Every structure is written in C-alpha cells, then in structure tokens.
C-alpha cells in the first residue's frame, strides 16, 4: 500500500489523537495537517462537507471522516498489529463499548449546576461499566492495546483536564481501581506516551470552550 496518507487533525481533539495512535501502532507513515477547530480552514470543508469536522484521514486522495470509522478502516487496510479481535462477538463488544464511551462520558463535562448533577450519574455509571470490562485485564484488548483502548484512550489524559476545567471528579482511584490502573499503564506505553498533547494547551482550550458553551445556554431565552 504505497499511497500517501494524510491526517487532517488537531492537537486539541481526542478524536484526532486516537487516529494518530492507531497509525503509529501500525507503523504507517503519514503527514499530519494541523487544524484549529475554532478557525476551520477550507480543507475541512473540502474533505468533510457533511459534518465539517476533524479528524479526516485522506488515503491516496480519498477522504474518510468519523474517528471510529477511520479506526476500523486503518485496521482493515494495514494488517500489522490488529486492533479489533477476530471473534465476531468480541468485535461487537469492542464496537459497543467504544460507542458507549463516546456518547456518555462526554456529557457531564458541559453541564452546569443541577444539569451537572444529573449528567454526573450516567457518566459515573459509564465508568463503572468500563471498570467491569477492564477488571483482570491489562488492556481492553488483552495483553496488547486494541480498538477499545484507543477509543477510550482519551480518558487518562483528557478526563483529568475535563475534571479540572469542569469542576467535577469522575475517575476516582478508589471507586475505579482497575480503570485507574489501566489509565496509568496506557499513557506509559509507546507510541502513546510520545503522542500526547501538552496539558496546559488542553486546559486553556477546554476552559475557553466551556465559557463559550455556557454563554450560549445563558443567552437562551
């Protein structure tokens, strides 16, 4: 597969990082085209006219958005270091938990006041389910990092930032000891540890984002 690989991404986006991790794990050479999500370039509109978001993988000129869709494509195209398990049932489970993590844990961050209390419930519940899934395993993929580790891989680094910015505590080491241990292991492993955004950038990005989001809801009639 000698065709050119480009990743249009952003250092603030956890969705972008999970794609980078997958490419690095597979040893795929790629060009990273850095976007600022608050100031989108024409490139994003060209390669993702439907959702106008990053990340977008461009392989041999053919674009592909949606990070979980991209992960599966990477896994099917570059066979080294498989991400998804072979067994169809296990594959279905990995897909299920990846989707779940994306949908639930994110909500608690943007909520405020009473809404936050309400959103914390499902967020904590989702961490509890992940805790059950990881118990007894080093990684969600077993001995090696797999699809679900990449999908949930934002938790170790980003969740901590979201907790600080959003004034909430979710990943409590006492409540979720296995998940906490997984988080510690995950960010130590290559290529993850060499490919993590600077924390202060994330803090200022999410802080600005939260102020903006809260101002939107404050201005609603």
């Amino acid at each position: 597969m000698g065709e050119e690989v480009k990743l249009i991404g952003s250092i603030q986006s956890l969705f972008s990082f999970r794609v980078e991790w997958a490419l690095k794990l597979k040893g795929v050479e790629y060009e990273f085209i850095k976007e600022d999500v608050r100031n989108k370039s024409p490139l994003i509109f060209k390669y993702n006219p439907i959702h106008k978001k990053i990340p977008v993988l461009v392989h041999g000129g053919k674009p592909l958005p949606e990070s979980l869709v991209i992960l599966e494509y990477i896994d099917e195209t570059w066979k080294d270091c498989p991400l998804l398990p072979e067994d169809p049932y296990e594959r279905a489970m990995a897909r299920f938990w990846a989707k779940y993590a994306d949908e639930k844990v994110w909500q608690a961050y943007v909520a405020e006041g009473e809404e936050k209390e309400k959103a914390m419930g499902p967020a904590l519940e989702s961490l509890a389910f992940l805790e059950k899934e990881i118990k007894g395993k080093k990684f969600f993929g077993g001995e090696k990092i797999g699809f679900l580790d990449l999908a949930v891989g934002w938790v170790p680094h980003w969740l901590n930032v979201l907790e600080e910015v959003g004034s909430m505590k979710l990943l409590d080491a006492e409540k979720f000891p296995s998940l906490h241990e997984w988080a510690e292991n995950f960010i130590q492993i290559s290529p993850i540890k060499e490919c993590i955004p600077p924390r202060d950038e994330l803090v200022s990005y999410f802080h600005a984002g939260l102020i903006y989001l809260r101002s939107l809801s404050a201005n609603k009639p």
Partner: protein
Amino acid sequence: MADDIILLDFWPSMFGMRVKIALAEKDLKYEYREEDLRNKSPLLLEMNPVHKKIPVLIHHGKPICESQIIVEYIDEVWKDKSPLLPSDPYERAQARFWADYVDKKIFELGRKIWTTKGEDQEAAKKELIGCLKILEGELGEKPFFSGENFGFVDVSLVTFSCWFYAYERFGNFSIEAECPKLIAWTKRCMQKESVSSSLADPFKICGFVVLLRKKFGIE
C-alpha cells in the same frame, strides 16, 4: 432452534426492523419476542443493562445490542450468504459512515416533526428534507447505496420509510415531492422479501404515533 437466535424487539421500532431484515437476508430462523417498553422484561434488563433498549439479539445466550452493531455481527457470522458490507475497506468505511449519518440525523428530526408545532416543526421538516436530499445525492443513479446489491446503508435507512407517512401526515408535507429518487429507491427495496416482510405497515405506525401524541399531550 438450530442457530439459537432470539430477537427482543418492539414492532414500530425502525431499529428492530433493521435486524429483522438482516436475519431475513441471511435466511435465518429465530425466536421473536415482543417487548412492552412500559414494562420491560427481566430478560431485556439482563441482556441490555447499559441502555435497557431494544433491539437485542441473543445468540447462543450472549447478547448483542445497538442495531448497527447487531447487523454487522450478523454479517460477519453468516458471511457466506448475501453479504451486506462490501469487501473493499474504503467502500466498507463509506458504508459505515453513511449508516452513522442516518443514525445521527433521521430519528431525531423525524421525532421533532411529530412532537412539535410551528417554527420548531418547520425547522425540523426543512432539516429532514435537507438530509434526505444529501442521502439521495449519495445514492445517485445506483439501484442501491452500495451499487448493484442491497447492502448495509440500505438496511439502515429503508426502515425509516414506513415512518414517512406519519412524518408527512403530522408535518403536512410530501417527502416524495421533495425526494422522488429516494422514494423510488424505497419501492425498489420493498420488492425484496426480506424488506417487505420486516417493515411495519405505515398506517399502523401512524396510528401508533396518534396514540403517543395523546399520551404526551400533543395536539
């Protein structure tokens, strides 16, 4: 039952219908169990503790949840008959992308049409038509979304077609007038036994929506 398959479903659900189509495409026998969503069975709560929703496929006692994930599972296990996803990785990714697009857009917009009035409803109608036109564009001149054969994206979208009558009735508009090629595609899909035997009757769906609106106090 040779393949030991149980489907927990609720008859009006366009998500459950996707699974029925996939099972029919693969010629599989299964036990169908209708759930009362106001009184969920212990089996449903046990098999889908996370979302407590239908559809749930139970294969050899193990549950699989989320309709798109179930359809992919069925396609992978019974891969020798009527493949729903293409074999080329880029085309597979495209199919997953469009199925995800249907999931992100159509249900919520449709729901807004029969639960709101005035400006909100107009906005939802406009947006739904916009999305259906985008899908129509993606279909192009092909008989089905992936080309000559009925596939994954067709399964994801066609189940909404039995809800179109309800959307049109309560939104007071015609989807066919706006998206004739898409409606032609739904009729093409309905010629397949797997689709016609899996979709609910649009009039029954409309009657169901009337009951829901009464229940929610929507005039």
